[in-house]
């Protein structure tokens, strides 16, 4: 007998959702037969606002596109404008940028660990990981003045130099985080409950992953080794030694393992950056930041964020203000076409798990 179909609204306030968005599910019993993503709860028209502000005034806007990980946005916009203008960035600033990006990646992974295990019912991990993430936020606070939004990377370099003794603090924090990882292994990754909930759930077809536009950890969780930091090295990633971990399976478990392995790589990158960081200038000053005419041109730049390829298409028409800034976040594909597809056939209780494993961040979709 065919079970009765029901419509279920998952979100926008559901605690398992990764932000304010809604998935409209059509379910038969416990199984999803159709999923539709509805966004718009966080639309703030950033791209329109930026067309009416000067280039420098756009930096405090872009970081607000993603709460867990704002720095790739700043770095992308800065690099795009520098590419259009042909502005050189001091070597020291490049190293500082990589350090900030990797710290932000670690912070994002801690938040992901909390969300991912929370959706599987392991409520100790979120308490720990949010606490450990705070140590990274403390570093950001000292460096930039802001814990969440930093507005630190901008055109020409970074806003200020490292404070005295900051490098030591970063290294000590890295030692602490590294010592904590085995604890998380015991609590989360070796946990039978998490493994049972994650293995074989939310599978992405390896053959289709590239064509569907899957990027970041979900792509590497299909066993495909692609990372913007290696494919098209930006800043100083080509001078650093790191590997791009992959895992076979394409399920939640594979994505979790990829992220877990990447955390170690990030710690290693941060240590290398601090060791190799040269002295000198940290900012190639824009003469008059609020009266800065960027020559006509266009650029497409991309960064590997914690959730995958983050792209910015930027067009300048030679005026004070950007002609067009169009943001492509990884969630734009993961949260709509991919999510709608892989939710079909899944269980209602797995929706939050799958969303978290894809790293869906709604403000990226609607900006």
């Amino acid at each position, binding site marked *: 007998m065919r079970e009765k179909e029901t419509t279920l609204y998952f979100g926008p306030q559901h605690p398992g959702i990764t932000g304010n968005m809604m998935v409209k599910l059509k379910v038969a019993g416990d199984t999803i037969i159709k999923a539709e993503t509805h*966004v*718009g709860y966080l*639309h703030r*028209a950033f*791209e*329109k606002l930026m*067309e*009416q502000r000067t280039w420098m005034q756009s930096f405090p806007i872009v970081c607000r596109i993603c709460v867990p990980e704002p720095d790739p946005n700043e770095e992308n916009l800065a690099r795009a404008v520098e*590419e259009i203008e042909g502005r050189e960035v001091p070597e020291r600033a490049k190293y500082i940028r990589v350090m900030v990006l990797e710290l932000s990646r670690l912070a994002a992974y801690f938040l992901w660990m909390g969300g991912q295990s929370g959706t599987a019912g392991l409520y100790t991990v979120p308490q720990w990981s949010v606490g450990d993430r705070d140590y990274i936020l403390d570093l950001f606070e000292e460096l930039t003045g802001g814990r969440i939004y930093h507005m630190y990377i901008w055109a020409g370099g970074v806003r200020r130099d490292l404070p005295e003794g900051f490098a030591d603090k970063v290294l000590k924090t890295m030692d602490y985080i590294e010592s904590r990882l085995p604890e998380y292994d015991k609590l989360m990754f070796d946990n039978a409950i998490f493994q049972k909930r994650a293995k074989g759930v939310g599978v992405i077809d390896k053959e289709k992953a*590239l*064509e*569907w*536009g899957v990027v970041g950890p979900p792509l590497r969780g299909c066993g495909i080794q*692609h990372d913007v930091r290696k*494919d*098209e090295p930006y800043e100083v990633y080509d001078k650093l030694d790191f590997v791009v971990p992959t895992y076979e399976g394409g399920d939640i478990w594979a994505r979790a393992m990829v992220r877990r392995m990447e955390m170690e790589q990030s710690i290693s990158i941060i240590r290398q950056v601090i060791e190799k960081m040269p002295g000198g200038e940290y900012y190639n000053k824009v003469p008059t930041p609020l009266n800065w005419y960027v020559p006509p041109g*266009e650029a*497409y730049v*991309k960064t590997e964020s914690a959730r995958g*390829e983050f*792209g910015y*298409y930027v*067009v300048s028409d030679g005026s004070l203000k950007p*002609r*067009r800034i*169009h943001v*492509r976040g990884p969630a*734009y*594909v993961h949260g*709509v*076409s*991919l999510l709608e*597809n892989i939710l079909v056939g899944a269980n209602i209780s797995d929706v939050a798990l799958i969303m978290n494993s894809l790293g869906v961040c709604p403000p990226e*979709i*609607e900006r």
Partner: protein
Amino acid sequence: MNQDLSKENKTINEIKNTFHSAETKLQRNNRIIVKLRSDLIPPFLSYAKNYLSFNHLSHFSCVDWIEDNEFELVYILYSYEKNLIVIAKTRINREKAEFVTIKHLWRQAETYERELHEMYGINFIGNDRLNEFILEDWDDTPPMRRDFDTVRFAKDNFYTRPGREDAQDVRETITQKSGEKIPDFAKEFSVRNLK
């Protein structure tokens, strides 16, 4: 700086040989810009995907060139095999903004087309899902068009809270309305330093 641009030049030659009218430009290493007539875009994208291994639709954007009365559609394709980006561009009429869908080539293009339909009012023929995406009950000019006046929109749709039309000093307004006396210690916090 001497860079090896052989793969870029090889791809440009392949594109030129197939699409003679294409204007190609080597922007920098890993970036090729191809300008095409609008009717050649669908065959070009199909060719790039199936024969040149550009199988990743990285981005799909639109730029409003209101002074030329045109929209510029920008398709950004990436080849994992070649590690190369092709930026394919074309211009369409702004008044009768219409183009064909490419969702049969990349399913994720559907999302981009829904956004561009909503924000620029471009109708993508063949895309049956151009429904409400980000905006809710929108019947004004598509907001990302450059002739959309944000100040006018804000004035039409939002209002100042009654009692806050003046210098936004709530304390002063309340005092005037209710006749209540402000304690001395609070006067220094007031914007106008009430006597």
